[in-house]
């Protein structure tokens, strides 16, 4: 009997240290941010719950523009990263076995931090960057000002490029593992049943790797949606991304700005959670038979 009791609580005992950290730090952080966003911040002498901050933030154009801008950047970069990453992964799967180095090299950007990635984009894509120089020497452009503004620009191209450089290998890695497992067996079945290469890709590889592609998209999207460093380093003055906006409210010399930062943080959180929910729903829909 004693043994049995232990076996029931055993998993919980094993989980305790992790749960302490997850509850204490992570959930604690989220809850505190939530409380502060509603104006409950005893340390600042704010003790009443109010929707004031939400109302103010949600009606400010700066916030709405930032929301749109963040969405735009994350969506475009994640979408492109996933499309190109899946392409890369698919091609890598089909690459003959001997290309070991290629399979190693493409992963390099994964261990390079985003800060360095933004330096790379800076070196390459400013108007006097290497890309412009190469075009100049190719005679494509005659003056440096003709080179389009790709960094610190309103379209967030520099930011998107950083995310692409970082996330394409990430997506490729995740998808490669999955594709590699699908490899051969299902492909052979399909080919044998009369499917062409293209049909195999669209009917077999893509749907089978869709869950991992989807989760890679979510991870990449959420990461770029919530990341501060890159838009801070390469972004335009206006609009800003949500995390930059949140950060600036947070480090504002007026502590009473913090609830605003928290409202933005909570908005980020809720959107990311909503995304998972939509993803799960879509997955259920697409993969009824999984």
């Amino acid at each position: 009997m004693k043994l049995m009791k232990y076996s029931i609580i055993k998993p919980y005992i094993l989980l305790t240290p992790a749960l302490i950290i997850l509850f204490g730090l992570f959930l604690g952080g989220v809850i505190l941010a939530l409380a502060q966003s509603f104006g409950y911040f005893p340390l600042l002498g704010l003790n009443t719950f109010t929707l004031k901050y939400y109302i103010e933030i949600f009606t400010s154009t700066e916030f709405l523009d930032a929301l749109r801008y963040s969405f735009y950047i994350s969506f475009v970069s994640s979408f492109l990263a996933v499309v190109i990453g899946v392409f890369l992964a698919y091609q890598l799967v089909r690459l003959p076995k001997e290309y070991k180095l290629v399979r190693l090299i493409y992963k390099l950007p994964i261990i390079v931090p985003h800060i360095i990635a933004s330096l790379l984009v800076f070196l390459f894509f400013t108007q006097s960057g290497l890309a412009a120089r190469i075009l100049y020497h190719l005679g494509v452009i005659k003056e440096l000002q003709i080179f389009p503004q790709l960094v610190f620009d309103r379209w967030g191209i520099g930011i998107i490029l950083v995310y692409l450089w970082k996330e394409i290998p990430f997506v490729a890695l995740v998808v490669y593992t999955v594709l590699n497992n699908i490899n051969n067996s299902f492909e052979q079945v399909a080919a044998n049943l009369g499917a062409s290469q293209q049909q195999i890709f669209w009917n077999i590889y893509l749907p089978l790797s869709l869950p991992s592609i989807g989760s890679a998209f979510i991870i990449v999207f959420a990461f770029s949606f919530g990341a501060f460093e890159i838009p801070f380093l390469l972004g335009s003055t206006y609009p800003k991304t949500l995390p930059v906006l949140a950060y600036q409210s947070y480090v504002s010399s007026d502590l009473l700005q913090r609830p605003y930062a928290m409202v933005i943080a909570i908005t980020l959180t809720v959107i990311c959670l909503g995304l998972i929910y939509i993803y799960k729903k879509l997955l259920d829909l697409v993969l009824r038979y999984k």
Partner: protein
Amino acid sequence: MAEIELQNLSKSFEDKSVIDSLNLTVNDGELVALLGPSGCGKTTTLNIIAGLLEADNGDLLFDNQSVLDMPTKERGAVLVFQNYLLFPHMSVGQNIAFGLKMRGIDKKTRKQRVSELLELVGLTAYADYSPNDLSGGQKQRVALARALAINPQVLLLDEPFSNLDANLREDMQNFIRNLHLEEEMTTIFVTHDRDEAMLMADQIAVMNQGKIEQYGKAKELYTKPKTRFVSDFFGKANYLKLELEDNNFIFNGVSILISEKDKLALKLRSGKSIVAMIRPEFIELESMEIERNEETLEFSGSVVEEHFVGDKIYYQVDIGSEILEVTELPQKSFEVGEEVKVIIALENIWFMEGEG
């Protein structure tokens, strides 16, 4: 349907020869088993026929036409893989319709064909199930239906029953036999189970180390194996080493007259050592008192071991020079230690060359 001919096919992986100048002709409409131990190259052969692997050498003919340069989708040879490989992201119905869809068949036709096939394999109610919710046997049947959907000229089955448990296996074996009787497409299936091969196939190709060792009907392979390998593969046997003396074999003091025909067939020469192969169930045991009067070899022996295994009993009988394996039906029951008469009909002795 089609006749299939493998001519001197060879295939190596890296430097390892896996198929070695293999020759085999499968007649139109036949149900053939490719039987052999693990790793002998059965799957490889099937893959080459299906067009999923390229042979290094030799030729592959369908109805006397080489198909080596024909891509898999045009050969009309559909392979059903050992582990079903149903597409997990499609329903049963979608799986079956896959090949048709790839051929651009319109939806209505597809639907109709799918329901025909579902009926054929007895899974009408399962069209919208996920493959994951099916039992092993049901999966197997879906895989079959998927292959059949595109009316293959040749059906290739890679160990179609090895993942099924005993009852299911019997069902599926019957199913495929009946299907073959109805549709009569050329069918090759791979197995390493001799009973299965014998139960199902019109002809059996026994494969060993990349070659066909013997090709023939079950009974022939069982009773008249050309090599020790085939003999062993088809079950227990007693191998008696004989000495040829003129027209007689001498064994255990008894001399056996050999016909001129056998002598010629075996290219027998005096003094050469020959092995007589006798299957245990071709040996009869009788209580000492029973009289027999057929053309037989007879020894007396004593039972040294007895094993009841339901529908038969395995005995080991000491006849002095040898211990013979004998299988009897359970009606005939002897006890360990009992003295018995061992009777071997001459017609049941098979002579092979080689060491005993």
